[in-house]
């Protein structure tokens, strides 16, 4: 460790104020604090000791919670590939390695480009390197299909970091969730690579088996509604039997974005976030609750077969679970009052299902629902705080 400290110490004189590379000072500090917890001490007044937790550790906790989704996603990319190409005896390892071969380059591009932008802003605006991108950098790949061109990942990342975050003043100041803004950018700028039936399964240069369809349950549903056929009956005739059984959907062995398919892995992540107190259980629970309630409402209305999709299916298809656990809980863009969190989460769930069923253009709704509620979160908080102030006024003897 001494060696590393010496290395940093030897660089220090070149980046200090007045030195040749003083502009790079924040980069130097940023890298040093990754290896070493800084030697800063508390001031002479104010608290003399501080809690062991800092933002780096909080962000790292989220990364740990994302790891099950990431690893499962790598395996599932390989698994779906071999299913679609008719290789029945592929080993666990070969599936995982094939998936990793697809996912890791996306991860590298996301981190590389995102940190590059982040560093550039730190140098230009002379603010310290903030930890927010550590999480964003892994979230972006997990909400992309495995077939996404790498240059699009790079563009999306640049767009997200600059437009969603840096223009507002960096981590803690953004209004929209950065990773979802990146995804939304691609969704509207290059829809053919991030929507439709052909992007969710990585085929490579192989040919798919007869009868293969890369459609997700949601696109089956939308098609069924349009054609006036039964969704649930149609699922039985899927090219791969059992693909859209409830428990298979729950496990996530289905086509989809890299990290979003497995509800089980999301719930493991949710457990980590909730136990560590980093993610709000109120938001997670209320997103699921909102989606289920809205699913029930559609069941009761029931004017087409997609509306009749059992409400609990909404909880296990698409990106609802991933969005609920990792996107909606982003503390900066979510509602910040405790009452507000219930409303915010519930509305995300409700909107997701409305977009899924009633909007023919977008088969999946969680991304837009979260972004939409990001915008409304300050308004929700405003009314919660106003109510709080009213209550305080009544109580105090002003």
């Amino acid at each position, binding site marked *: 460790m001494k060696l590393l400290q010496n290395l940093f110490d030897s660089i220090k004189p070149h980046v200090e104020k007045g030195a040749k590379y003083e502009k790079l000072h924040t980069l130097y500090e940023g890298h040093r604090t990754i290896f070493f917890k800084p030697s800063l001490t508390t001031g*002479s*007044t104010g608290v003399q000791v501080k809690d062991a937790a800092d933002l780096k550790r909080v962000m790292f906790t989220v990364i740990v919670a994302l790891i099950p989704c990431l690893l499962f996603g790598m395996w599932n990319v390989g698994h779906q590939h071999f299913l679609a190409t008719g290789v029945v005896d592929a080993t666990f390892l070969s599936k995982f390695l094939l998936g990793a071969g697809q996912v890791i380059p996306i991860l590298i591009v996301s981190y590389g480009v995102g940190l590059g932008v982040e560093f550039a802003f730190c140098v230009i605006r002379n603010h310290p390197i903030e930890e927010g991108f550590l999480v964003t950098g892994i979230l972006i790949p997990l909400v992309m299909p495995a077939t996404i061109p790498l240059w699009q990942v790079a563009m999306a990342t640049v767009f997200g970091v600059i437009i969603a975050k840096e223009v507002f003043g960096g981590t803690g100041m953004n209004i929209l969730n950065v990773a979802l803004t990146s995804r939304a950018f691609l969704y509207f700028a290059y829809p053919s690579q991030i929507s439709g039936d052909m992007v969710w399964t990585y085929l490579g240069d192989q040919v798919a088996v007869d009868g293969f369809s890369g459609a997700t349950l949601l696109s089956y549903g939308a098609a069924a509604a349009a054609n006036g056929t039964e969704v649930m009956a149609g699922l039985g005739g899927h090219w791969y039997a059992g693909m859209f059984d409830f428990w298979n959907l729950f496990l996530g062995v289905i086509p989809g974005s890299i990290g979003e398919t497995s509800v089980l892995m999301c719930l493991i992540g949710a457990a980590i976030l909730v136990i560590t107190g980093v993610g709000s259980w109120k938001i997670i629970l209320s997103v699921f609750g909102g989606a289920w309630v809205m699913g029930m409402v559609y069941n009761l209305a029931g004017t087409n077969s997609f509306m009749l999709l059992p409400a609990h299916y909404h909880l296990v298809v698409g990106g609802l679970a991933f969005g609920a656990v990792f996107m909606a809980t982003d503390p900066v863009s979510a509602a910040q009052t405790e009452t507000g969190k219930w409303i915010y989460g519930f509305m995300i769930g409700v909107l997701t299902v409305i977009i899924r069923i009633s909007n023919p253009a977008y088969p999946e709704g969680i991304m837009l629902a979260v972004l939409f509620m990001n915008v409304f979160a300050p308004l929700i908080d405003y009314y919660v705080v106003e109510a709080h102030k009213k209550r305080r006024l009544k109580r105090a003897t002003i």
Partner: protein
Amino acid sequence: MPQTFHLNKGFNIPLAGRALLEEHKINQPDSFAIKPSDFKGLVQPKLLVSVGENVKSGSPLFFDKGSEEVLFVAPVSGEISEIIRGERRKVIEIRILADKEIEYKTFKKHTKTDIINLTRAEAIATLTVSGIWPSFIQRPYGVLANPSDVPSAIYISAFDSNPCAPDMAYIMRGREGAFQLGVDVLNKLAKGNIHLNLDASEIPSVFSGTDHANINKFSGPHPAGNVGVQIHHIKPIGKKDKVWTIDPLSVARIGTLFSEGIYDASKLIAITGSEVINPHYVKTYSGACLDKLVAENIKGTHVRFIAGNVLTGEHVGDRGYLGHFHNQISVIPEGDQEEFLGWLLPSFEKLSFHKAFGLLSFLSPKKEKVLDTNTNGEQRNFTISGAFEKILPMDILPTYLFKSIISNDYDEMEALGIYEVIEEDVALCEYIDVSKNDIQAIIREGIELIRNS
């Protein structure tokens, strides 16, 4: 019938080095100091003494331009040795080289009947000239009380829930009589509305037999012992309210002043913290220099000497002085060294209110921890939500209050509760803040903005 309040929110910091309930004889420090900065809300201190002058315990040292009748007095007798000034000749410290034997300035002695017949004006006249008055703190704002106000109540917190806090009952032992007399005098000031707030978990202590006061009991983790939190639960205050607070020791000093006619500035100080060899109590006077109090009782070499507790105290160094309100010295290791991957590696020892990855101290919440002065991270924007709300046992939205201060929004500050808090009430928020902001400083800034608006 005492009312009991159960507070659930808060956090006890199990700091190593709590003082044993025993008093050790020490050589008294030679030097004592009075710091005008201990008293909030002063306009401009005006000196009444100069270097070389001799003073008695109770002799006036300075008064404040804002309320000229209130005198700030010497805690011990001796010679004014030094007057430390800062920028624009602001008085920082008035130092006294103490006599071996304390001489007291004498005030009028009162019998019990005298005290019963005392008028409010007489009580105030005696309190303001004798050095006791600066112990009265006004809420809102946490500033020096104005003798011409009539407070709607006076609150006394009879326990301290801060890390390694001194046992108030131990500090007060033998002063029950003086304390009762003090309470009787307080009754003259606040139309009989005196609140004495006890720790509900303690067996009847020196305070529980007190007459002429409303007894309230509080249970729960820190900050249950903070008088501001207690007022919030007993009778919350708003803009136009005025209540006063006073610490139990000062109440006993009032009793001694009226019965014996002297300003008795003696007090027991708890010497605490992980770097103290024998944490115990020592007897000295307000404003004592730390040097003799901690002499030959310190383990480490690279340590921080804090007058007060680790949440609200002040880093004064081993030759610094106790503040007027301090009953405690905390000595903890300095944390000015880097730690390889310190932000990442799991630990049972690093204390955290949060349960973020690898911070496992919550598994053994009672186990004593050694804490150093490292900030454990760099300052950031407020990022996470909901944590302050879990730790502040008041009907206040802390994050919104802090943000309203940062954005200088007076209406919001008022509506969100700036009148109900002072620094110590949000000290835990500052401790647990993962974004490492100086929240106590933010609150004081807000209070000053509102006071001067």
